[in-house]
């Protein structure tokens, strides 16, 4: 559970650069969106937000709802912090950030409870735990505290999507092998393995439903990612 603390230097840089008007999707801004997907992925590279990646990737639908919640919190949290960045005294900034996350998370929690009670029940404590999701606090500290509204929003979206694709990928693997079918709300279950498999003696892998397998799946994703993206390999 580490949050990065690199506020001061970034802040100065951006204030200077902000004078000429930038196009909305300049190369730099686009990078904010695309970087977290691969080169600077919050889960596989920064190894943040692992707890939720292990806990709620048993079912794809849970993972998707979780990702949407994180996207919401991330986007608006980053924007709010970015707007307030000049008035937050730096000594109490963590508390202010916490208040912002907490209020957004309570909002999400109430909305889920009102409209998706089934899934809210399954996600239970983990929606509340978004407050402690290291990615969110990390982005507030590392980015929103020192950047203007628009880049902060992009950064929030980028990181949330970077988090989301890992979560959904892990959830797809776990649900296919753990339950044999992916269930979607409204549509029902989509079976990936024909019944003849089961007749021939195939069984669902129970270990896939247990958290250790999520860790191993994330590990394998990191492995694949690094073998494709060589610059991520640390020298030791």
């Amino acid at each position, binding site marked *: 559970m580490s949050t990065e603390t690199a506020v001061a230097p970034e802040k100065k840089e951006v204030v200077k650069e902000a004078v000429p008007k930038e196009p909305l999707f300049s190369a730099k801004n686009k990078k904010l969106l695309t970087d977290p997907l691969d080169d600077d992925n919050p889960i596989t590279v920064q190894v943040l937000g692992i707890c939720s990646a292990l806990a709620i990737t048993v079912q794809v639908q849970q993972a998707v709802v979780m990702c949407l919640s994180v996207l919401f919190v991330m986007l608006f949290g980053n924007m709010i912090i970015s707007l307030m960045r000049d008035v937050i005294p730096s000594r109490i900034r963590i508390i202010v950030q916490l208040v912002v996350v907490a209020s957004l998370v309570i909002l999400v929690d109430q909305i889920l409870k009102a409209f998706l009670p089934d899934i809210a029940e399954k996600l239970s404590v983990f929606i509340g735990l978004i407050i402690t999701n290291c990615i969110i606090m990390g982005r507030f500290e590392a980015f929103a505290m020192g950047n203007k509204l628009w880049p902060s929003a992009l950064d929030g979206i980028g990181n949330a999507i970077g988090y989301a694709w890992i979560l959904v990928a892990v959830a797809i693997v776990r649900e296919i092998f753990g339950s044999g079918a992916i269930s979607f709300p409204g549509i029902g279950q989509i079976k990936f393995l024909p019944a003849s498999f089961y007749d021939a*003696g*195939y*069984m669902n*892998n*129970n*270990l*896939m439903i*247990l958290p*250790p397998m999520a860790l*191993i799946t994330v*590990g394998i994703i990191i*492995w694949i990612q690094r073998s494709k993206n060589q610059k991520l390999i640390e020298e030791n």
Partner: protein
Amino acid sequence: MKFVENLLDNVKPIFDKGGKLEKLYPMYDALETFAFVPDHTTKKGAHIRDSIDMKRTMFLVIVALIPCLLFGIYNTGYQHYLALQEEASFIDMVLFGLWKALPLIIVSYGVGLGVEFIFCIIKGHSIQEGFLVSGMLIPLIMPMDVPLWMVAIATAFAVLIAKEVFGGTGMNILNVALTARAFLFFAYPTMMSGNKVWVNAEGGTVVDGYTGETLLSQAITQGANFYNTAGVQYASVSESFMDSFLGFIPGSIGETSVLAILIGAAILLWTGVASWRIIISGIAGGAVMGLIFNLVGPEVAPENLYLQVPWWHQLVIGGFMFGVVFMATDPVSAAQTEKGKLIYGFLIGIAAMIIRIVNPAYPEGIMLAILFMNVMAPTIDHYVIQGNINKRLKRLKTA
């Protein structure tokens, strides 16, 4: 032998650098060094060379496993015919056991070596022999009816995740064979525990009162009052002790006979492959913890009969001895320092008994105990070494 040597020498240029099958050199290297003493010479520094290299070490472990394997094959057949109360000759039993055990061995070796060969070819390093032992251990710790595709998946998982990911033979944190078993235990619990998997009773009706449980799971429900696998009540605990010592009880293929395991242990200790410290302290740990449970059991939890199974009986049922002799002594994943080995073995014995007795959901405590201590072994070593450093520093200061 001369013919094989000539053949290998003749095809060598194809596999050498620049040859047609350069990429497959690790495979050639493995075959050559398996058959002959290689002519590799030391390149850097001075080393003491011994004729015993890793292939020979691994081979000795396999030799030590042979008694367990042979008895396991016989016992598989014996239990089968006992369950059906059919007359069968010794040959029938052995044939039945072979029919069950051989596919497991073939699948385990085939898949494991396959994964290892592919990895070595991709990575371009020479094939290590670590899997020779793991491949033999995996079938020995499986129930004989476990589906072959499960063995294949578990073996591939173990070789990949427990070994190759960490850098191959000699780098693994966890014991590879136990990882395979733990994978199956958690992934497909219905095929790895319960009372249906230990004895094959197909092709007939089982006798009345037959349960097919292992003595371990009988002990959980009945305490020391084991009943025989074919429904016959044992006259006394010592009678069932003899059967479990000799191995005529249901269980995984290689684990049942403590006698066969002790023969293997003797081979390992005589050749110096296994550490006597781990074996002795492991057994001591199990005995001590069993004794503690025996003493406090009647007072703390009189309803739990399992606590009252005599400690010397706890040692011979289940996979305790097999684990301590063949798994805990794995030189890679065990503690490396001499004092560390004593602590490591002792804690394995204690942890195995605690897991086995306190949590009946995991009857095979030794598996989890060894995996757990595998993870702890580097920490133990660290503190042993630190302790030694501190001791010597003190001596330096006082002098």
